[in-house]
């Protein structure tokens, strides 16, 4: 309801309120048609006609649509300071308001016209300077989107169904043996391996879900219970049982976990607040995932282009200057904090870029902040930096033929990808080097060498091909390090859309409010970082599976070795 926290004055019978609500858009239209009259109301002027008694202060601010940034007129603003100085006003056509109060905490209630959610907030008024407030109201259409179950419920049930089919195949597969003892059945050993790995994934995700719930919600609740004396659900009333009783803890755990898991699985992820934006978490994820995917494509391409030849050449001769140099450099790059490497890299590019293209703040372009500072959004870019029609900024820039945009996004992607590669290749190299050295000493290579095949052919053609499965396995193993690095690099470029920015923002935000709190209002039922970590884990498990399966497909000796 738009006005569930609002008690508009004068209090009239409900039909009158309904009439008022109808009249407000008309009023808005009227105000818009009379800009001169609206401009006459200056921001700093007190709203009350009587003039402020001595000792009172004026707090000014603007109310805007959280989603589009447009000002909202006709919002009633009720304020109550700490000495019962009460004020009541309405925003003007530019969404501006001003209220009188005294120093100290000031309760503000914003009763929005229909279509927006009301808001209640507290600001602390100082008696020296009070910067203008910016209040964002959320369109109700978005809130409905958050509280309803989404397609994720269908996706979850489809996943469960697929797993059930998989389990059925493996269980039902007849296990007979031939005379020689080899198994025959519906699935080949390879197929059985893939099916077995696939079946494990939901169980692993469920175990992770339990772990995330225990550490993100249950233990903090116990911690709070030891202070308050009762086990209470976030935002709920105090439970009747004592926190020390085991049965109480068990029932609390059970009921809490069911709610937590169902919210997470049905896409009910609540609101997320990143910088000045406070929006449904689903929006952030769907808008910013294409940015992360685009960056990953660049970063992985650069990483492969460096890691493959370098790993081969350096590992070929252990202890060679190339080997030692590569290892030392890679470790130094790994150990110098990523943000220092990032800042130096930006510094390297910043000056030439500035000289070539003038004032284009590096690394900020497709972010909402850049557009706000440079005269508004392009028609095909949304408030969160999401581009249309595909959502991938580079592709959309090409579709719209915006060369400057494409160039900026491209350079930024390359810069970030180079940074990710610099760190990730260091990790990758440490794992792969040993395998290269082992392959270099293998009997087949020695035999080939004795037949006079040149060393470069031995390295690049014989060993290089043979090591592709090993590289794949190593990639699967180092995928957590890769994803973590990319997330950090995304967060490092402040104001940069990307899943990493959301993850770091949510995790560090949680450190302020505490885990398990519904810290963003009644609709924030799940903690978004838990959702992202779950998705990271799913990506990792699937990536690992693909790498393993592909490696076994390319090199059957891996499977043979594992069976032995």
């Amino acid at each position, binding site marked *: 309801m738009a006005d569930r926290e609002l008690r508009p004055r004068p209090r009239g019978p409900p039909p009158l309120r309904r009439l008022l609500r109808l009249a407000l858009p008309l009023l808005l239209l009227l105000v818009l048609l009379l800009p001169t009259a609206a401009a006459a109301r200056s921001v700093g002027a007190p709203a009350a006609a009587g003039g402020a008694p001595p000792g009172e202060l004026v707090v000014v601010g603007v109310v805007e649509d959280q989603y589009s940034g447009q000002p909202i007129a006709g919002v009633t603003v009720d304020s109550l300071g700490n000495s019962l100085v009460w004020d009541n006003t309405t925003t003007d056509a530019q969404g501006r308001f001003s209220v009188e109060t005294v120093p100290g905490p000031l309760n503000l209630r914003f009763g929005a016209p229909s279509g927006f959610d009301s808001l209640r907030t507290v600001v602390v008024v100082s008696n020296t300077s009070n910067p203008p407030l910016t209040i964002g109201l959320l369109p109700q259409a978005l809130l409905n989107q958050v509280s309803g179950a989404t397609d994720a419920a269908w996706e979850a049930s489809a996943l469960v169904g697929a797993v059930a089919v998989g389990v059925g195949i493996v269980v039902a597969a007849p296990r007979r043996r031939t005379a020689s003892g080899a198994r025959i059945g519906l699935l080949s050993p390879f197929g059985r391996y893939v099916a077995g790995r696939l079946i494990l994934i939901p169980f692993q995700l469920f175990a992770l879900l339990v772990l995330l719930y225990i550490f993100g919600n249950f*233990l903090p609740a116990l*911690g709070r219970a030891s202070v308050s004396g009762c086990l209470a659900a976030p935002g709920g009333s105090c439970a009747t049982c004592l926190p020390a009783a085991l049965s109480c803890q068990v029932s609390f755990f059970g009921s809490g976990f069911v709610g937590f898991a169902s919210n997470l699985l049905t896409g009910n992820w609540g609101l997320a607040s*990143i910088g000045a934006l406070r929006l449904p978490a689903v929006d952030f994820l769907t808008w910013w995932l294409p940015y992360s995917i685009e960056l990953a494509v660049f970063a992985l391409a650069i990483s492969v282009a460096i890691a493959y030849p370098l790993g081969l050449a350096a590992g070929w001769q252990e202890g060679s200057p190339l080997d030692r140099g590569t290892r030392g450099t890679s470790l130094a790059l790994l150990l110098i*904090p990523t943000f*220092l490497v990032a800042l130096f890299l930006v510094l390297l590019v910043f000056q030439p870029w500035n000289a070539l293209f003038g004032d284009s703040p590096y690394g900020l372009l497709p972010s909402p902040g850049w557009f706000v500072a440079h005269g508004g959004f392009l028609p095909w870019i949304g408030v969160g930096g999401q581009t249309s029609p595909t959502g991938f900024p580079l592709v959309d820039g090409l579709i719209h033929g915006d060369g400057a945009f494409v160039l900026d996004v491209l350079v930024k992607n390359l810069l970030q990808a180079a940074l990710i590669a610099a760190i990730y290749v260091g990790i990758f190299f440490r794992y792969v080097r040993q395998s290269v050295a082992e392959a270099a000493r293998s009997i087949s290579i020695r035999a080939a060498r004795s037949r006079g095949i040149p060393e470069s052919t031995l390295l690049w053609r014989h060993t290089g091909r043979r090591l592709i499965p090993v590289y794949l396995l190593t990639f699967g193993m180092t995928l957590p390090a890769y994803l973590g690095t990319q*997330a950090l690099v995304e*967060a490092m470029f402040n104001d940069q859309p990307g899943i990493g920015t959301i993850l770091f923002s949510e995790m560090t935000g949680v450190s302020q409010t505490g885990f398990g709190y519904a810290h963003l209002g009644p609709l924030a039922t799940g903690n978004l970082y838990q959702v992202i970590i779950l998705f990271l884990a799913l990506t990792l498990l699937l990536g690992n599976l693909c790498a393993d399966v592909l490696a076994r497909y390319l090199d059957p000796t891996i499977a043979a070795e594992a069976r032995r």
Partner: protein
Amino acid sequence: MSAPAAPDGPEPVATISTRERLGRLWTRLRPNGSLLAGLAVLAAFGAIGIAALLWYGPGLDVMPYNPAWADAPVAPGPAWGRWFGTDSTLGVDVFGGLMRATPIDLALVGGILLSASLLGVLLGASAGLFGGALDGAVVGVSDLLVGVPPFFFVLVLYLGIQPLLPLGQNDLPWFGLLFALVLWPYYARPVRAAAQRARSAPYAESARAAGSGPTRLLFRHVLPNSVQPALAQLPIDVYNIFFVLTVFPYLGCLGGGAPSAVFKPISIVPSPYYPEWGSLLGYGACYGWSLLPSLDAWWSYVFPAAFVVAFGLGVMLLSDGLFRLLSVEGLPR
């Protein structure tokens, strides 16, 4: 230790004098330059740590605050008496902070690395050697833990248990414990694979045939031949540990000193004035960059970064040296 030989009695044939033992050890270690260099670097850090413990005494864990440095627009740089300059975010002497931090970091990082690697190697080798339910448990748990980047995971666990910990205490031991619990699978997985291969290797079979029990087989035969693949992980975990200690204090002030609207700082150490390399580096980099293209106050992050990198290189050299030491001498593995 060998018993000292009687001065005028016959020399026992089988005993070797301590000196000779040391001599043999030295002949074995001398060609292993990485191991010696790594040991030297870590021994230097150990010496600094002991000196700091003796010099600063019980007041070691709080860095003294100087308001004049904190209020200066650019913190005073290196000079006589404060060799590494000062830090304007905190208003502390960088050299003194790094010295005080050395024993704390050696204990913290060394403790995490040792406990994680010991736990991982033991569990991985046992799982690979004995198989069965133990193997299933180790594989299941480690697959679960490896599914999330370790630096996020440890933070989830640490912030989760924080409300249960008593207020006003140093939570770093808990942090170290949780980090070790998150990191052990990275050691257990490669060791398990190596132990599985070793289980059916001829030397293990002959040891079994000679009557070795499971404990002897594990510790005497399989373990020494399986730990090698885990050694590559040690320097990477130095990165993982300092990632958490450095990045999270830094993120809160991302963007040249102004408090970030997007990120909030997370401090793992009890207070910003608790001496710790990573947090000194994070806070130093905060205000080292007053504007993006300028490099003022470089000393507040370059020296702490140098300590972290030197320590990591020491660990890398040590792990390389151990790798060579554990290889069968002269024979490629």
